[in-house]
């Protein structure tokens, strides 16, 4: 008997799971537990519109045409789930209460990595949640010099937003060029040149060895011996999945919650979003994916399978997609270019910073990067989903 479903994690995946359960006719008790005090909000604008001041933080809350009442949720916000007992089907919460479930969907996301060996202090920030964005925006009001550690997408978006505010920006990246693990060197160079042309002081091939400033940050010391003055330091060096609360649960944890193709981690227990490693047919693997669309797709998948019950599992097949807005460029990426063997620019050019690039592994099209070419992305996303050959992709 399916009377109670609990969802842990009140962000995009948690919300879409709740919406899907109701849309598919689940009319039992539905509990949504979130450790942040906020109702679900959208993260992509935080590093862009919110930091640039073109969108107020409260405008990131997901709007629901019929409000939250229609979902009839028991929303428990500002309270963290602390443990899970699979046998009694019971969650323990940080406020001392419990939540019993017949089905459970876990979407606890991830949290930013911090610099190892560096103590927290004023002016040293990360950007993940709404409160982080509000705090960072506040700091930037009185911070002419910003240093960003890590030239991943979050770091580069923060850099672009800070430049839009007219701030002096230094970006520090350990690798010789930004985004090297996921793109090809020529494209990484293009991204680096774009930021330098917009006035970013991009320092590659070095790491932060120390941060100077006791009560508040003052400067950074880099491994090449240089020192950079900074009023604010933003660290964007990746995330850690939030699974510690499940350590004693018996679920398989390995850089996330390991799930089968139905999104199931244990009988009646599902996971979705940044915290999950769902077996993905397209990948032939169970990657942990930190993208917006992945959170939606896995949440819908988990919710549908939670209602269908154990054994009624569908397999999951999805081509990863993400985007990044930096200056006047929309960077869209679909597929997986890691371990690619060849990259070909099929339209546009690096010089124009407007292009479509395809990636090959073996005889298969594996990924497409489109910069300011949204129509091309749609075309190749379809071909990627169909697992077309490299030859077919080049002549499409």
């Amino acid at each position, binding site marked *: 008997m399916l009377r109670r479903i609990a969802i842990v994690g009140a962000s995009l995946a948690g919300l879409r799971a709740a919406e899907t359960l109701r*849309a598919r006719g689940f009319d039992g008790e539905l509990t949504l537990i979130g450790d942040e005090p906020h109702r679900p909000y959208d993260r992509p604008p935080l590093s862009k519109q919110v930091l640039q001041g073109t969108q107020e933080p409260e405008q990131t809350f*997901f709007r629901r045409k019929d409000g939250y009442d229609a979902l009839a949720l028991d929303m428990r916000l500002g309270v963290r789930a602390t443990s899970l007992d699979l046998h009694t089907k019971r969650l323990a919460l940080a406020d001392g209460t419990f939540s019993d479930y017949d089905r459970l969907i876990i979407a606890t996301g991830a949290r930013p990595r911090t610099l190892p060996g560096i103590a927290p202090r004023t002016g040293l920030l990360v950007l993940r949640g709404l409160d982080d964005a509000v705090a960072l925006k506040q700091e930037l009001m009185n911070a002419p010099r910003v240093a960003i550690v890590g030239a991943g997408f979050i770091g580069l978006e923060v850099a672009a937003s800070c430049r839009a505010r007219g701030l002096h920006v230094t970006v520090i990246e350990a690798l010789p060029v930004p985004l090297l693990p996921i793109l090809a060197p020529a494209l990484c160079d293009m991204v680096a040149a774009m930021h330098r042309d917009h006035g970013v002081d991009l320092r590659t091939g070095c790491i932060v060895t120390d941060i100077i400033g006791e009560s508040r940050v003052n400067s950074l010391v880099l491994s090449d011996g240089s020192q950079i003055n900074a009023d604010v330091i933003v660290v964007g060096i990746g995330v850690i999945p939030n699974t510690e609360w499940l350590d004693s649960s018996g679920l398989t944890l390995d850089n996330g919650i390991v799930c089968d193709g139905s999104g199931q981690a244990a009988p009646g227990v599902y996971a979705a979003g940044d915290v999950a490693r769902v077996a993905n047919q397209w990948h032939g693997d169970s990657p942990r994916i930190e993208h917006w669309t992945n959170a939606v797709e896995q949440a819908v998948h988990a919710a549908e399978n939670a209602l269908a019950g154990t054994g009624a599992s569908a397999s999951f097949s999805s081509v990863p997609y993400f985007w990044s807005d930096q200056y006047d460029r929309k960077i869209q990426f679909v597929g997986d270019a890691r371990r690619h063997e060849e990259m070909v620019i099929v339209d546009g050019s690096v010089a124009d910073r407007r292009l479509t690039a395809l990636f090959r592994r073996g005889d298969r099209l594996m990924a497409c990067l489109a910069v300011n070419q*949204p129509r091309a992305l749609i075309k190749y996303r379809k071909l990627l989903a169909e697992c077309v050959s490299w030859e077919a992709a080049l002549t499409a």
Partner: protein
Amino acid sequence: MKIVVDLNQCDLHGLCVEAAPEVFEIGDDGQLHLLNETPDQSLRAKVEKAVRECPTGAISIVE
């Protein structure tokens, strides 16, 4: 079923085109076009997928 797209919100991710190509298209002008404002009920599941997957929440179904 009637569909409304807020073009000011549309960010050309094209996920709606993939979900419901019968209804959405990005044209030669680089803009999203609604091919059918009042699609048949048989397309409801596809349009609902387009709505929930739109990263900017630009698509609404107004009954």
